[in-house]
């Protein structure tokens, strides 16, 4: 799987799907509810070592998918974390076997609220059960079992992906040797929840949402979903990044003022909202963002007991201009993990780009991941 045109790329890849739970043997959720069947979309890059000791698991963020690296036939852009994954890249596919899957409740090939409910023959809609961070982990583990992978060298993720890694490391620490948690949180603040609440309200109050039955009714809450995306997107960027990119530039020089897209930044947001409609489902947005709101693993009794008994090496990274999940969120995780006596490395990286920095190429960021991953690869 090499691509001569793009040095360091894993080249052409395809998303695969595995049925991990059936209607007869459904997935048991943390809430006690069950879902079945459950299909999971995933991709893998690199080669599994004969002793299966070289596996890195990628957990994606709120609107990510299984396609983390390489190219799909005919696409204009590579996978969302392509700058990190490939031959010679920090997650070096010449040495590591990388697994990336779409999370439960998503809309990119894995079973979610947009999937068909076998009981009704229609999309689940709001009948889909509420999810918990633990449910994502349950499904990741089922995929590993399906792939015959007993142990991870590293579990790694940014934002909601980092939250999955944190949950996983606390509940099944023997699954992994290393955990990399980037620009994530162990507990959303009121402000974080507030932003998500407005995004969800934009969706649910769109008349085309139809109580979540929009698929059955042949509509889609385009307005609500695009507004949700536009607002979320603002929180992913820093003020400086927006200023640098657009300033107060007019969209059309010399145009008369009005209530349309007068400023370049308005055009950008509008575009972000529109392209989001092509790849994301409104119900998935509700379900997945709600999981983040409720995530608070350190509030449980003795939350670190398991990982203390079976230590994981942590790397915690934040970005100084991230105001979606500021460094204070990562420091909170650091305090818990360090106080438990676990080996933990923390860096706050400088980047002008806010929360989105974890998806971008930054020399210090990538050098840090490379150093940690290279070391992990040596001592495995």
């Amino acid at each position, binding site marked *: 799987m090499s691509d001569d045109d793009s040095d360091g790329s894993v080249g052409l890849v395809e998303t695969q799907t595995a049925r991990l739970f059936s209607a007869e043997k459904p997935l048991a959720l943390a809430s006690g509810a069950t879902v079945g069947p459950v299909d999971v979309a995933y991709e893998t890059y690199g080669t599994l070592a004969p002793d299966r000791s070289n596996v890195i698991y990628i957990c994606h963020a709120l609107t990510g998918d299984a396609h983390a690296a390489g190219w799909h036939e005919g696409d204009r852009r590579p996978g969302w974390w392509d700058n990190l994954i490939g031959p010679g890249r920090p997650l070096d596919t010449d040495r590591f076997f990388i697994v990336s899957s779409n999370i439960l409740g998503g809309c990119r090939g894995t079973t979610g609220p947009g999937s068909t409910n076998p009981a009704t023959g229609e999309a689940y809609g709001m009948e889909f059960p509420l999810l918990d961070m633990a449910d994502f982990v349950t499904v990741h583990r089922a995929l590993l079992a399906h792939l015959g992978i007993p142990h991870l060298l590293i579990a790694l993720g940014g934002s909601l992906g980092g939250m999955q890694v944190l949950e996983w490391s606390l509940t099944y620490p023997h699954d992994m040797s290393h955990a990399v948690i980037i620009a994530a949180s162990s507990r959303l603040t009121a402000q974080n929840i507030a932003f998500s609440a407005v995004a969800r309200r934009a969706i649910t109050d769109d008349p085309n949402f139809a109580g979540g039955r929009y698929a059955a009714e042949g509509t889609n809450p385009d307005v609500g979903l695009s507004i949700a995306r536009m607002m979320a997107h603002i929180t992913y960027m820093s003020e400086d990044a927006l200023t640098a990119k657009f300033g107060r530039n007019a969209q059309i020089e010399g145009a008369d003022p009005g209530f349309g897209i007068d400023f370049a930044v308005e055009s950008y947001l509008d575009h972000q909202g529109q392209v989001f409609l092509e790849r994301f489902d409104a119900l998935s947005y509700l379900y997945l963002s709600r999981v983040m709101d409720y995530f608070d693993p350190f509030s449980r009794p003795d939350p670190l007991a398991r990982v203390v008994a079976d230590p994981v090496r942590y790397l915690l990274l934040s970005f100084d201009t991230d105001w979606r999940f500021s460094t204070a969120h990562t420091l909170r995780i650091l305090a818990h993990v360090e106080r438990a006596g676990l080996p*933990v490395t923390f860096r706050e990286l400088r980047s002008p780009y806010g929360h989105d920095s974890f998806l971008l190429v930054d020399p*210090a960021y990538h050098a840090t991941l490379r150093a940690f991953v290279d070391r992990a690869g040596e001592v495995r």
Partner: protein
Amino acid sequence: MSKHSELRLDLALVADQIFEGSRVLDLGCGEGALLEHLMATRRCRGTGVEIDAEAVLVAIRRGVPVIERDIDVALADIADDSYDTVVLSRTLQTMLRPEYVLENMARVAERMVVSVPNFGYYPNRLRLLAGRMPISKEIPYAWYNSPNLRFTTLTDLEDLFAQLGLIIDRRYTYTQSGRRLRMYGRVPNLLAGAAVYVLRPGR
């Protein structure tokens, strides 16, 4: 398979003060050489604190857990008595609040190892007498570019230890070339280029 020979001389002495199997907090750990050595040869666990980005990268590559923060800020988040030994190697003189740092070191560990350059070393005194700020192997900076904020002689430092209720269990003093001085009392304040103290909180 001791890597002792690779350790800087003063770090080797610091390493000798640390018990097998300890949990060690190394403040100003640099590239993590001490912790790597302790983890590899003494079954120690630990955390480094370092603010120099390049050094932090080297420590990460070595597999040394390191927190990239200012020492005083990082210390404030460390729990009481959560380490066996806390180390501060040639760093106290760069601290804006050395008193605060020492107090917090005493709070987080029952054993402290502190190494310092000696401003009272006689060539420094001679240079000052000649009307010049001291520059030496231990203090190799001009006044305007020195990272050192707090200059102390061993005598002044020991006064501060006493004031903070820190008990000196051991003191090792060196000449500038790294030779151990077998002297006691106040003479090393004149003849030592640097010293390593092993302290414990008097609580």
